[in-house]
């Protein structure tokens, strides 16, 4: 049996877990290619119009993958941390896909609660049972998968250049180079290093979040806000760039919270959708860097 994993949304954060888990169960795993124009076009074609760009792109990945596998993972990720949730769009993702893309293969859509190891294991048991009756094999696959996931350290931590910026945003906006138009490379070329939330310890992020009048409901919000507030307070960077999805509700709240926290500290939002032109984005990035370098040459 071949299982397909679309390279979209939280793939960038959690692919070692899913890939290892299915491989250890003896399945062949296929992954869609890096996002490209063809995938975006497919996504725009199938996905409802008012969705955010990452969702459209996810649809595109599913569309190019669906005929290459017998079963496809549409991760209905509900939770990756206790008492916090992921964007509501993730909860309905399998339904969105099934209603929009015709002739889908079988899908894995069981809700994933990854707040604790135990909860995640209950997902693994149920999915494993579809594939094998051997309980110990499932358990072993699950353990291996967690080990691989632990080893995986995505993110950027480069403060060896003249200037450093914090790149804030949802993981897919940071790691999908097609979405962000290779912003890390662009910044590097301009002599700017990039750091991302993965390199600020959880406890420090928690510390910052305590200052909010209410505990954030969404994990993305917690991470983005906590990260931005920390790099600002500890002066780890010269400026902050927030990559935001057009039409994302979480972003619109978090951006305001961050702005309130950091006052006049250099901050720029790059709102991205399928119409975002590369030239306009370049202009903004260059002007921001000029500004940080106290830029009037």
């Amino acid at each position, binding site marked *: 049996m071949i299982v397909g994993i679309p390279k979209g949304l939280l793939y960038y954060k959690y692919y070692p877990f899913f890939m290892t888990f299915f491989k250890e169960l003896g399945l062949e795993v296929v992954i869609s*290619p890096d996002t490209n124009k063809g995938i975006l076009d497919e996504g725009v074609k199938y996905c409802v119009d008012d969705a955010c760009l990452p969702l459209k792109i996810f649809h595109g990945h599913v569309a190019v993958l669906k005929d290459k596998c017998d079963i496809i993972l549409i991760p209905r990720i509900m939770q990756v941390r206790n008492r916090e949730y992921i964007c509501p769009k993730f909860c309905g993702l399998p339904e969105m896909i099934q209603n929009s893309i015709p002739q889908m293969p079988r899908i894995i859509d069981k809700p994933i609660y990854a707040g604790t190891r135990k909860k995640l294991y209950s997902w693994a048991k149920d999915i494993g049972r579809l594939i094998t009756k051997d309980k110990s094999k499932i358990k072993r696959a699950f353990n291996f998968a967690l080990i691989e996931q632990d080893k995986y350290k995505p993110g950027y931590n480069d403060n060896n250049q003249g200037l450093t910026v914090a790149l804030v945003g949802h993981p897919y906006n940071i790691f999908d180079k097609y979405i962000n*138009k290779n912003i890390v490379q662009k910044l590097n070329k301009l002599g700017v290093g990039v750091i991302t939330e993965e390199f600020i310890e959880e406890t420090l992020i928690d510390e910052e979040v305590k200052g909010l009048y209410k505990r954030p409901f969404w994990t993305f919000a917690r991470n983005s806000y906590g990260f931005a507030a920390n790099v600002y307070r500890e002066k780890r960077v010269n400026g902050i760039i927030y990559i935001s999805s057009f039409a994302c509700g979480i972003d619109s709240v978090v951006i305001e919270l961050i*702005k309130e926290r950091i006052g006049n500290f*250099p901050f720029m939002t790059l709102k991205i959708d399928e119409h975002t032109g590369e030239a306009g984005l370049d*202009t*903004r990035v260059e002007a921001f860097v000029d*500004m940080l370098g*106290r830029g009037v040459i």
Partner: protein
Amino acid sequence: MYYLGVDVGSVSTNLVLLDKNNSVVEKIYIRTKGSPIKAVQEGFKILRDKYDNIKVYGAGATGSGRHIAATLIGADAVKNEITSHAVAALEIDREVKTIIEIGGQDSKIIILRNGVVSDFAMNTVCAAGTGSFLDRQAERLDIPIEEFGDYALNSNIAVRIAGRCAVFAESDMIHKQQLGYNKADIIKGLCDALVRNYLNNVGKGKEILPKVFFQGGVAANKGIKTAFERALGFEVIVPKDYNVMGAIGAAILGREIAEKEGKTNFKGLDLASSIFESNSFECTDCSNRCEVVKLHENNRSIGCFGDRCGKWSNRVKAI
């Protein structure tokens, strides 16, 4: 000693020639009409005919077509529009704290503190308030665009127009016309609406302090200028060369780099008679499938644009 600045935007291409005091000797405005190469060459022809034997000691390019323009002319500096506009304004007055820039198709705000850019925002999505939109409304009301702003000054009562979006603004204007309001009051209402729209979008959350410079083509419109003054409660200054400030900034930056390097890359005004050709091809080396444009000058390739990875644009530069 002269310095040249070129600002290639989607609507217009502006060229300026500065003397050694950075004063404008010549400014040229050409419609880009989708062909930046032709527009730049046209500008060069005018310059060459008028200033046959001058020597240009430094050149800069800015605007959305800055990369192509830079390759074309051999620019010493290639800078984004924000920095260029800021440099030009600061050259006139170090005390400027805010720049409002409204051009043909986009608008920006630049916040300066102590002679340094401290914040900015751009709007390239909404057409309301940009030059193209005003052109269209002037045409619809059958008023020459040059007189459009003066109409607003003749009105004492502004009609309230919905300015949040170009489409709504237009249909609201039509509606008000049908109700019998006079043109002057409607135009004044429109100016107020566009200024409101600008302040609530581009200017959102920005601390607009005087001195404020109003730059870009739309600054010619007195109706908009006074609407800004009404909304802000203080004077808004329109600099003399308001419509070519980007090009001026580029020229100054080009001069600075050329002086630092002790030489200029500028290829000369004779460029006007070069034959430029561009062809495009789809790169199939990876799944991005970029549409790459290759530029030839007199059959020699001088640059490539449009590749996301830089493999084409870097290659030719090395030659």
